[in-house]
């Protein structure tokens, strides 16, 4: 029976990809291990190897097709003695090819629709002509749809152009173009002196970064993921964060430690941890955790200029998402200024980083039921714009916080404490701090889903605090 070759999943987060190139044509013999096609994911172009042997009977998805969903049949392999005429006999499906193509078009369309959680058009309420609290860029500025990945790269490139002392260091940042392609193109533009591949030695190169900062440079240290920064924890806390204080103000440490933080997809306990609450605890550090591409860009530029050590927590799942970024020569976002992502009157939902997707999604659902949520994106956790939260709670009298990290000692618990002390008289319900579950991240798909915080849980928590 002819075997269908299916579009493979080539990364933990891949759902669809581009069939960039066929390296075999119809009629070619294929043996296992042969590279038959090149497939582009959002991160990279990958070679696709044959597993079975046979003859390539028919190509179902032409090269150049974008948005091919994982597991879509892309070709048919014939075993010895079979001919192309056998294709489709058993499935009684005259034109598998054209069907595959229609499917692709569909997914193309959905791809271009704005994401459900696009912050600007979040709801009719947000569209109402209320003056924004503090606009991040002047009205009328041209904006460009940009991925978080590109925004981060642009921020680094712009700062490197402006300041010779800025350099990037980390594992696979140069020749490989970044394990998650955040430093793509930087080696070409700035050369090996300023874009530096390190051996796998986090504790060592974090410390070298700290020393270089003491010595007058402005390092950007990339951790392939923040899980590996635990190897470097001593240098980050004991050396970077505390030296200014210990030296009586003489010796600052202008360094940025950045990389993806939190759960990706199915990478299990040692690779799926949100460190927001950990770093937020440390005096001497600043901590940013952006959600949108504009914030990623504006905050990273501020972080690089900051004379203090900054922990910059990104998220692998957000890297590929697009948001509007203003087209400006020098666009920055200050630390310590929250963003009102959606205005509302019934409840305040506070989040940051990927938690914002759940918060905004929940706000949509709640709006359908007539519950009008205000959603605050903290953007930076240290300094934290607690004024924005208090101001909002004085209006809504209720608050739910959303984060991916663990419950005990969470960011939400800190906010709850602040509200207890400073807005007690305005609260009409106990604050609910929603977090990931109190367990190491499991690998199994069903358990991982349970371990993460969800939009449904946000909806449920809001119903609790609004008694509706």
């Amino acid at each position, binding site marked *: 029976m002819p075997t269908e070759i299916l579009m493979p999943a080539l990364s933990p987060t891949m759902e669809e990809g581009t069939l960039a190139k066929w390296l075999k044509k119809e009629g070619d013999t294929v043996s296992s291990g042969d590279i038959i096609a090149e497939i582009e994911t959002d991160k990279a172009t990958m070679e696709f190897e044959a597993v079975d042997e046979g003859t390539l009977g028919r190509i179902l998805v032409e090269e150049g097709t974008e948005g091919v969903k994982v597991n879509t049949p892309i070709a048919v392999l014939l075993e010895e003695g079979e001919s192309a005429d056998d294709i489709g006999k058993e499935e009684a499906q005259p034109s598998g090819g054209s069907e595959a193509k229609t499917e692709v078009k569909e997914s193309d369309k959905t791809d271009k629709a704005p994401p459900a959680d696009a912050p600007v058009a979040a709801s009719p309420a947000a569209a109402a002509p209320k003056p924004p609290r503090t606009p991040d860029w002047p009205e009328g500025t041209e904006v460009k749809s940009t991925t978080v990945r590109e925004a981060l790269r642009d921020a680094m490139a712009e700062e490197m152009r402006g300041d010779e002392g800025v350099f990037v260091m980390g594992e696979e940042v140069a020749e490989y173009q970044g394990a998650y392609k955040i430093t793509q193109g930087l080696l070409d533009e700035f050369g090996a002196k300023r874009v530096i591949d390190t051996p796998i030695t986090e504790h060592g190169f974090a410390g070298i970064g700290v020393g270089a900062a003491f010595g007058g440079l402005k390092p950007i240290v990339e951790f392939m993921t923040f899980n590996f920064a635990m190897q470097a924890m001593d240098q980050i806390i004991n050396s970077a964060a505390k030296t200014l204080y210990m030296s009586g103000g003489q010796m600052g440490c202008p360094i940025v430690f950045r990389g993806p933080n939190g759960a990706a997809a199915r990478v*299990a306990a040692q690779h799926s941890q949100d460190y927001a609450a950990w770093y937020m605890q440390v005096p001497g550090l600043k901590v940013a955790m952006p959600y949108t591409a504009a914030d990623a860009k504006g905050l990273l530029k501020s972080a690089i200029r900051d004379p203090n050590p900054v922990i910059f927590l990104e998220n692998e799942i957000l890297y590929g998402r697009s948001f509007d970024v203003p087209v400006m020569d020098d666009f920055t976002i200050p630390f310590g200024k929250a963003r009102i992502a959606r205005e509302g009157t019934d409840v305040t939902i506070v989040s940051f980083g990927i938690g914002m997707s759940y918060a905004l999604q929940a706000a949509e659902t709640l709006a359908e039921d007539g519950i009008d949520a205000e959603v605050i994106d903290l953007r930076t956790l240290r300094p934290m714009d607690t004024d924005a939260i208090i101001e909002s709670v004085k209006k809504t009298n209720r608050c739910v916080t959303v984060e991916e990290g663990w419950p005990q000692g969470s960011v939400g618990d800190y906010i709850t404490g602040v509200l207890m002390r400073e807005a007690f008289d305005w609260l009409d319900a106990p604050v609910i701090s929603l977090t990931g579950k109190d367990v190491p991240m499991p690998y199994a798909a069903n358990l991982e889903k349970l371990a993460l915080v969800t939009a449904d849980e946000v909806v449920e928590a809001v119903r609790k605090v609004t008694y509706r």
Partner: protein
Amino acid sequence: MATRKAAAKPNVSADELKTYYREMLLIRRFEEKAGQLYGMGLIGGFCHLYIGQEAVVVGLEAAADEGDKRVTSYRDHGHMLACGMDPKGVMAELTGREGGYSKGKGGSMHMFSREKHFYGGHGIVAAQVPIGAGLAFADKYLGNDRVTFTYFGDGAANQGQVYETYNMAELWDLPVVFVIENNQYAMGTSTKRSTKSPSYWERGAAYGIEGEEVDGMDVLAVKAAGEKAVAHCRAGKGPYILEVKTYRYRGHSMSDPAKYRTREEVQKMRDERDPIESVRQLLLTGNHASEEDLKAIDKEIKDVINEAAEFSKESPEPGLDELWTDIYAKDIPQGEAVEA
């Protein structure tokens, strides 16, 4: 200090040779199937295949005795199969199912078996190195003559904790064999781009640890070197380092575009140095096995792998209450005041 290259080839029986062939082939076919299941979305996250490196674990397991321990990185499927863990349980862990070695909670990178003395499956590069020395510490403390095989990569070999461990292992004469699986790349970084020291095993000299380089594409050479290392440890002479030169055919993980080396480089290794093919040739040219015999082995392995794949698809997802189990060990004896 011994500075030998490949160890002299030991005499092995035709049966032993066939066993190594079978075990290496089992790993290769297992990994090919895992790659396929990953492509179908049945395996998620990171999945690091061992194809090309099979002779390393098969050779060293041939030098191990019952009760010896092993610990390694996330590239662990081969180690588990070689120490006798069930392909069904390994594959079902890859698909995140109840029948997996960690009930689906660990995945590709994190599996363990007390029964087979396999201590994981570790995701943080080089974290397993001090752990391996710690296992050896426990054996020495308990007064048994077990040896621990501690596997790590060329990339891991640059981590600081490796050298902290070397120092203590030699200081305390711990029975640990440090196995550096030098497959020449750490993700996209070739060894030349991460160190200027000419060899990894020689770094042990700074701490007084003996070692040698081994041809990791030759299962018999690996076995001979392993026997020597194990004898050294069991004699109470402390740790030993084996730098095993090997090669991974596939990308670092499933999502590695592998642009840092040429297709020709990989193909040349496959064509000229393949560890399975060379044993196959040994068997055929020495008239130890016929084409038919080998076909029968191939068929047998294919069945084992298909059975494992079926099991890994049919085994149910873990029960939802498993989310909350295994966070703490139970049954802590308490003093009287607490119990009362």
